[in-house]
């Protein structure tokens, strides 16, 4: 699978030809600086477009059209990448040889997306219909409130808000519920026109067609889409403060949820990025990690305790569900495991496990069209020029002292805890909780 890059329409196409899959995937995305308002507008625009278009004027007829194309899928994408957002559509359908019939399924899917994008249902003033927009606004507000009431998600967001205060990444993902309700059909219609030309489109294809054939399809259906190329905004990279900040909220749940953020001035193009990938894996990335072995297995303090690495922000987040009374002990244990890595207490065995684990994940991602697409799209947008093999080769040469050096650039930045106010009884009271 050799990536082929070429211009297509007003944008760029990356085509990855492979006969491995029974489906084809083509994504269309545009990347622009993110803000809570832009994200809410984009989310409302996409959900409104999915409600129908002139040739398929409601959800049922639009869905029937896609089902006739052997259950083709058009789903929306709102991926934050650094301080930008990659917003667009996934078009996925069965490969032609897998379906019974003559219709070109990918062509049919792109034709449907074209109609959704260019023939939306508007009222006499050229605005989206008020009733449709009102329902979508209410649904978006419900989704915002749902996130705020999910203790695990809330702990993660709280940690980010404090850790990245004053930076784009510290802003809430959406406008507040009150501000969303103030958005008008006219606002969405204006954003719709802006979106069509907001930046240079990126098309990524994974499937059995030649790049030239994909380019022809793009130029047939989306010749006018997109505008000028925008420069990718590198997110702010900062060191952690001298002392870790702690923040706590309460929720009516049994189990406390903890998110602990570590931060370093290691950006996406920093030479220590690969060592940081290994650092994260050794710290909490797998069942062989220090967090799994010590916090869960040795001390039975939780069911899950793991870490994830955000390479665009130089941040590592640890998440765990714990009993309230174990909060101090768990924070101390997490910090102590990180210090262990800083002090170079990494065995050859841990380093080897970490390398093999990442190599396995990278190679496994080659078996999914969605993973392949995401790998390349994220790197094109971030300006990182690497393949899956590049990552594996880079990791091979990293040694323990490289990981310890990367760890020493990190500090514990923020700990967010959601205290469960129902804790203490052990379980919900079955008799009093249920009503028939």
């Amino acid at each position, binding site marked *: 699978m050799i990536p082929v890059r070429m211009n297509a329409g007003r944008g760029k196409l990356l085509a990855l030809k492979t006969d*491995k899959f029974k489906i084809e995937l083509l994504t269309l995305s545009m990347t622009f600086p993110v803000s809570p308002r832009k994200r809410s507008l984009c989310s409302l625009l996409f959900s409104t477009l999915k409600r129908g278009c002139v040739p398929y004027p409601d*959800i049922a007829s639009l*869905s029937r059209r896609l089902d006739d194309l*052997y*259950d083709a899928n058009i789903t929306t994408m709102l991926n934050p990448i650094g301080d930008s957002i990659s917003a667009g559509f996934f078009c996925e359908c069965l490969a032609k040889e897998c379906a019974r019939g003559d219709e070109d399924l990918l062509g049919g899917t792109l034709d449907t997306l074209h109609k959704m994008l260019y023939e939306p249902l508007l009222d006499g003033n050229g605005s989206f219909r008020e009733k449709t927009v009102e329902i979508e606004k209410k*649904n978006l507000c419900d989704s915002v409130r749902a996130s705020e009431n999910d203790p695990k998600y809330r702990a993660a967001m709280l940690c980010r808000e404090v850790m990245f205060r004053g930076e784009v990444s510290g802003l809430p993902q959406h406008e507040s519920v009150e501000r969303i309700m103030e958005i008008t059909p006219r606002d969405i219609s204006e954003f719709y026109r802006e979106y069509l030309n907001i930046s240079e489109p990126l098309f990524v294809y994974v499937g059995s067609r030649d790049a030239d054939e994909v380019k022809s399809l793009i130029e047939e259906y989306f010749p006018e889409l997109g505008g000028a190329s925008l420069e990718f905004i590198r997110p702010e990279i900062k060191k952690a403060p001298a002392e870790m900040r702690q923040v706590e909220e309460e929720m009516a749940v049994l189990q406390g949820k903890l998110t602990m953020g570590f931060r370093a001035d290691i950006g996406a193009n920093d030479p220590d990025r690969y060592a940081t990938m290994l650092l994260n894996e050794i710290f909490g990335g797998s069942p*062989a990690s220090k967090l799994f072995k010590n916090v869960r297995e040795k001390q039975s303090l939780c069911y899950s305790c793991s870490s994830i690495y955000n390479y665009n922000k130089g941040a590592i987040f640890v998440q765990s569900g714990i009993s309230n009374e174990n909060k101090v002990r768990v924070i101390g244990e997490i910090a102590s495991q990180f210090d262990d890595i800083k002090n170079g207490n990494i065995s050859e065995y841990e380093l080897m496990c970490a390398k093999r684990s990442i*190599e396995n994940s990278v190679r*496994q991602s080659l078996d999914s069209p969605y993973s392949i697409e995401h790998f390349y799209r994220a790197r094109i947008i971030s300006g990182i020029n690497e393949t899956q093999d590049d990552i594996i080769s880079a990791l091979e040469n990293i040694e323990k002292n490289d990981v310890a050096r990367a760890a020493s650039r990190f500090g514990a930045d923020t700990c967010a805890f959601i205290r469960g106010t129902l804790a203490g009884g052990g379980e919900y009271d079955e008799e009093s909780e249920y009503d028939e």
Partner: protein
Amino acid sequence: MTNNEIKTVKSSLLGEEYQHIKHKSGLDIYVYPKNFSTTYAVFGTHYGSIDNCFKLEGDDEYTTVPGGIAHFLEHKMFTNEDGSDSFERFSELGADANAYTSYDKTIFLFSCTSNFRECLSELLSFVTHPYFTKESVAKEQGIIGEEIGMYDDMPNNRSYYGMLEGLYCEHDIKNNICGTVQSISRITPELLYRCHEVFYNLSNMALVVCGNTTADEVISVADEQLSYKAPVKIIKKRTDEPSFVASSRKERKMQLAKPIFDIGIKDTCVPAEPIMRERREIAMSIVLDLIFSQTGELFSELYESGMISSLLHCSYTVSEGFGFCAVTGEADDPDKVYERIKEYIIEKRKEGFSEEDFERCRKVFYASFVRGLDSAEDIAEDLIEHIFDGYDYFGYADIINEISLREVMEIFRSSFSEDCFTLSAVFPFDDKKEE
């Protein structure tokens, strides 16, 4: 048995094939070669959370065990007698390992892109060599206690179990797969050994491998790791379940923003014959899709009027002795949605579905099956499900091809009666709607 018996199973419709090996150890092995980087292996036993009262043929008395023991046993299998942990061993080999327990199955698995032979050896070895001590059992009670707490805080999980409690009066399926903090406190090493001895007999298990491998490679590892054991006949005691539901409505209040609901519809005509169950499963899934998918008029009506705010997720679950449909969603007023859904189903049972909608639905099911063939994980997990259910894996696509609207309507009209419905809803703590 002294030799391995190998049979190739093919689908001319899909252009796919796999090998079924009756291994000399007594284990059924299935090898599905695919041109992927990943190889995915699942080794499972036909034993799950509902199997809490059992005996072997010839035993006088039944053994009754605490709820949650199948899941507990799954957790404990990763610890070995020499003090090593199989999770770590897989990490050392660069593989991802995991395990899960359902109502009637316990599955151990790994996926890897290298060291396949060593990984498969480890899988076959740790699952067949139990080692439990009082200390390790006590330690696991703490970990699983936190797992139970985690699931108890999930409104979706509570709503789903509320639905099962509403559907079933006696059947163990209504109980949490993990058990409760109280029930797992009664688990001992002796009980774990007993369950392992009975249910982890190779005649009650299956191994499925999909990906970058061959039948010869898998057989050679099995030859090294597995020795013959006499097959056992397990007798599972089931309580009689009435045909009506235990309760038509349940609700609880939790920390969440908007009410969620699970509507359950009890299937009281589950066929004993696996082939008939498979047909029924497909027919019921088609019915649910015709009623609840986005292409249907009911979804449009509920969504456009603001009664629901997201997709309605529906599924049909069936196994020997039980079957039910579940419809899940979010709504300001779940009771209103529930009433409208019941009303609509009564209407549709009378008037039926159109041939055009049925044909479209057939296409969707076919495409969904074909999509699954793009993933070693999906193939291996679906195949082992089919094996334990006694279904024919490729037969699924054939049934989709040949099933008629008439047959689907017959099954629809013989089920979904009004006394088979239950609603489980979870409301926010501060919700204005009072019980």
